[in-house]
């Protein structure tokens, strides 16, 4: 099928054997996550018969896949750049789940241009190595000169090596001399920094300046495999089934659903882009003040760069979490807290572009961002973890000579010296840095504080030991989705559901459509549940209902296929409400299949695509089941069952009261333990899983063509009861 390179690189670091997998055997899974899960199942569960309940992410038998999609490296808008990383992670607690992460940039496209749809890494090298891919030529190379370098230094060193010392700026020969293959591009390098080398559970994979695969701690997993970096340079081609259709679909998509430089309204401010998904402007999501001298910088093929490169170069390609993890100094959900400050500041006034900068020290923020990227540390952990440390310091628990003894200069919070010292301690596992390298949840466990701090919520890690992103008590699809998945889902498709009405209210502009119409704009694309707009009723009366269970199921299935397998960017898709489109109807439902068909030639209805997502989701649940998941484990941290603080932001959202749709305040509430159990039962019922265990059943698996998965679960005593 067009779009695919046709083969997947399989590298066994233990034996040094390099081989290929035929991509066509996996095309039914779409790409990315679907193929990654299928390979993991096939190689680890079936072929090696590894007992998944007995190994952790650092185990030699763990297989890490780095996968692209058929749309990677093409003109498919919003789906050209991302790369999916999977394997048993080392970050989640108390289970090290089989999990995923992803990153943008140009690594995935370059892998495709080199002729590979992905890489499957098995085993463990005896000593540090890096993988050198130049089109079809692949070599496992000694990394002794790279080990110890930070992620930026390592990339530059690899670039120099691959160019043969000629440097870049002109055409560089690729592969054996005289073969004619040339590129102007630097190799795309995915690497770990010192944190990964030290097997930190908060270590990320970094590519270029600011593309990070952080969640899951795959940097530490690579470190355990003695794998420093993968470099790829490709001079080949990516087949497109219908070039004219792809060009026309791109034109159609951008003209009808994306920003126009002619329509930008400065008074809408940065938030004009945040809740806009596919319509996003080329404006970065930043927590620092942008200087005048910068450009937007985009991932490969993207129409709207969401980060910048700056003069003189601090903060390049960092955004969102990286930009605010240190100086934003906010407890809890960044966005929610930000919104609260906006409400207070803006009143009914329009929100000017630059009033959203939470940071008076942009240089410190940028340097702190660079440091996290260079050391290869996951800022998703740091963003809530640093305020946690600060709280412990303020409580008199942490500091010189205190219970948690450290010499961190918290009296100089906000200055670069503190964050530099802290991150260096983590990356080198010095002092309490050794505890934090395990992640803040495990650090709290070491300090004997975990139970207490998850009850009070000063440790804001509410699901699987991972930091809260959007509050589960408010953002139901996010919270429920995360606790039913294996990581903070980080999928922004439903953010407009809370952002647009809230911002419309506080900006004084009024709501663009009625609450009923607003809910319908979302629900009507959510096949097969498209006749149920009550999925979008986030009222307290509805938050444990079968309607919301359908929302969560749909979101998991949609994301597994379109976001994590076909690799549409999660900041852009799904695109329901779109300011630029007629009737505010976004591109979702029509756009994804059109791009998919133009590139692959495969006609795929939106309903069928959701079914593939359901199939992938079921395979993932089978893996988690073998790892030891049971419905009893699917829980939030204690503080989530307590009242959501009233001082935090209240969202304005569509609610249905007594059959009438209206916009109402959503915020100050808790999740009720008993009713959450009832919700899980409803959810498992919708998935066709055993409500007593949460395990997949034979009938459900068989209906998805996964009968052999049911066989394996049954052999291991883990098949759900009908």
């Amino acid at each position, binding site marked *: 099928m067009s779009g695919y390179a046709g083969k997947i690189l399989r590298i066994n670091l233990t034996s040094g054997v390099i081989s290929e997998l035929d991509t066509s055997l996996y095309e039914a899974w779409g790409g990315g996550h679907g193929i990654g899960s299928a390979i993991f199942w096939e190689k680890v569960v079936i072929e090696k018969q590894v007992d998944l309940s007995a190994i952790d992410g650092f185990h030699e038998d763990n297989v890490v896949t780095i996968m692209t999609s058929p749309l990677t*490296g*093409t*003109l498919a808008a919003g789906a050209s750049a991302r790369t999916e990383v999977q394997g048993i992670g080392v970050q989640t607690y108390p289970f090290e789940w089989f999990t995923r992460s992803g990153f943008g940039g140009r690594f995935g496209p370059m892998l495709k*241009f080199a002729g590979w749809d992905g890489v499957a890494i098995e085993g463990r090298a005896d000593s540090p190595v890096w993988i050198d891919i130049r089109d079809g030529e692949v070599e496992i190379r000694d990394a002794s000169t790279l080990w110890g370098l930070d992620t930026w230094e390592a990339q*530059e060193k690899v670039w120099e090596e691959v160019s043969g010392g000629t440097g*870049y*700026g*002109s*055409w560089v020969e690729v592969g054996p001399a005289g*073969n*004619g*293959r*040339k*590129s*102007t*591009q*630097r190799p795309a390098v995915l690497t770990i920094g010192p944190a990964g080398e030290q097997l930190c559970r908060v270590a990320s994979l970094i590519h*270029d*300046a*600011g593309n990070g695969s952080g969640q899951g701690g795959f940097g530490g997993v690579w470190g355990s495999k003695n794998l420093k970096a993968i470099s790829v340079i*490709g*001079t*080949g*081609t990516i*087949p*497109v089934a219908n*070039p*004219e259709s792809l*060009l*026309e679909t*791109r*034109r159609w998509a951008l003209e009808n659903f*994306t920003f126009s*430089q*002619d329509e*930008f309204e400065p008074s809408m401010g940065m938030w004009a882009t945040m809740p806009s998904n596919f319509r996003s402007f*080329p404006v970065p999501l930043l927590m620092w003040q*942008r200087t*005048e*001298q*910068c*450009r*937007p*910088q*985009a*991932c*490969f*093929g*993207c*129409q*709207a*760069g969401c980060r*910048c*490169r*700056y*003069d003189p*170069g601090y903060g*390049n390609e960092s955004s969102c979490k990286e930009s605010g993890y240190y100086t934003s100094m906010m407890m809890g959900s960044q966005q929610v807290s930000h919104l609260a400050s906006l409400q207070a500041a803006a009143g009914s006034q329009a929100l000017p*572009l*630059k009033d959203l900068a939470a940071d008076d020290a942009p240089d410190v923020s940028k340097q702190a961002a660079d440091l996290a990227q260079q050391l290869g540390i996951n800022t998703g952990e740091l963003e809530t973890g640093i305020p946690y440390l600060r709280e412990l310091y303020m409580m008199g628990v942490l500091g010189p000579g205190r219970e948690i003894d450290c010499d961190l200069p918290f009296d100089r919070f906000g200055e670069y010296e503190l964050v530099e010292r802290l991150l260096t301690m983590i990356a080198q596992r010095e002092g309490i840095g050794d505890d934090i390298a395990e992640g803040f949840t495990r650090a709290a466990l070491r300090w004997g504080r975990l139970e207490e701090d998850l009850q009070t919520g000063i440790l804001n890690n509410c699901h699987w030991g991972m930091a809260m992103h959007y509050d589960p008590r408010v953002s139901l699809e996010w919270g429920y989705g995360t606790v039913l998945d294996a990581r903070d889902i980080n999928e922004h498709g439903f953010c407009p559901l809370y952002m647009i009405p809230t911002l419309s209210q506080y900006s004084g502009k009024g709501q663009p459509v009625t609450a009923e119409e607003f809910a319908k704009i979302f629900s009507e694309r959510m096949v097969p549940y498209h006749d149920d707009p009550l999925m979008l009723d986030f009222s307290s009366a509805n938050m444990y209902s079968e309607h919301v269970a359908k929302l969560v199921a749909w979101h998991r299935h949609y994301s597994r296929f379109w976001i994590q397998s076909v690799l549409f960017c999660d900041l852009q898709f799904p695109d329901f409400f779109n300011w630029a489109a007629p009737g505010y109807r976004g591109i979702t439902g029509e756009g994804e299949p059109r791009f998919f068909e133009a590139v692959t030639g495969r006609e795929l209805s939106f309903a069928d695509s959701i079914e593939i997502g359901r199939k992938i989701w079921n395979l993932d649940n089978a893996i988690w089941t073998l790892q030891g998941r049971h419905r009893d484990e699917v829980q939030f941290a204690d503080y989530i069952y307590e009242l959501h603080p009233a001082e935090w932001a209240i969202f304005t959202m569509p609610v249905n009261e007594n059959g009438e749709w209206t916009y109402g305040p959503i915020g100050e509430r808790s999740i009720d333990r008993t009713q959450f159990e009832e919700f899980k039962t409803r959810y498992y019922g919708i998935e066709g899983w055993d409500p007593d265990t949460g395990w997949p059943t034979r009938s459900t698996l068989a209906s998805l063509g996964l009968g052999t998965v049911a066989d394996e679960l049954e052999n291991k005593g883990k098949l759900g009861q009908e």
Partner: protein
Amino acid sequence: MGNLKERETIKRPPGISRRDFLKVSGIAVMSVRFAGCIIPGRSIPAAEGYLLIDTRKCQGCMTCMLACSLVHEGFESLSLARIQIVQDPFKGFPDDINIAQCRQCEEPACLAACRFGALHVDSTNGNIRTVDPEKCVGCQECVKACPFAPGRSIWDFQENHAQKCDLCAATSFWDGQGGPGGNQACVTFCPMKAIAFTTEMPVQEGDEGYNVNLRDGIWQSLGYPAD
């Protein structure tokens, strides 16, 4: 490859750079052997179209490269794209990005280097400087002759011929008219509007004629430098 062998017998005099030698010898040979292409003593006609770029407006997405290869080749390729974006993610703005588009030079060194009439002035398409792959013998002299880095005349190592920007005059995989009188894929698909088309010949000396300010008030309102 007989012609190529014949070319290799031409020796470069000592003290003359290779590029200068090829330029001079190429023009001389062409004047003799392809007198029908260029009239000796007269400059070749100016192209009727040029690509202007704004390197400060480019977001480095490389959409132009994807569009270029797709409309010309029917597949995606970076190495065969006739416009190249070269970037260094660690450098500061604006030195982090270079856009390498063909300048349709008034006095094209690539054309001068071609002794086989492959790289020619296409009078039916606004005098663009383009390659006839049927005539290309694969000597790659045009590739080496381009004085800009990276070179704008590129080597198609799959089909074994040179190729370069034709302002989309010959796009087998794109509807509609291209060339100087039509649309260009890189201009059309650049989401930043960082590439523009003009019929007016830019100043040939240096980059200022080609690398221009395409930013406007909207760009400034997005928080980016407009000047």
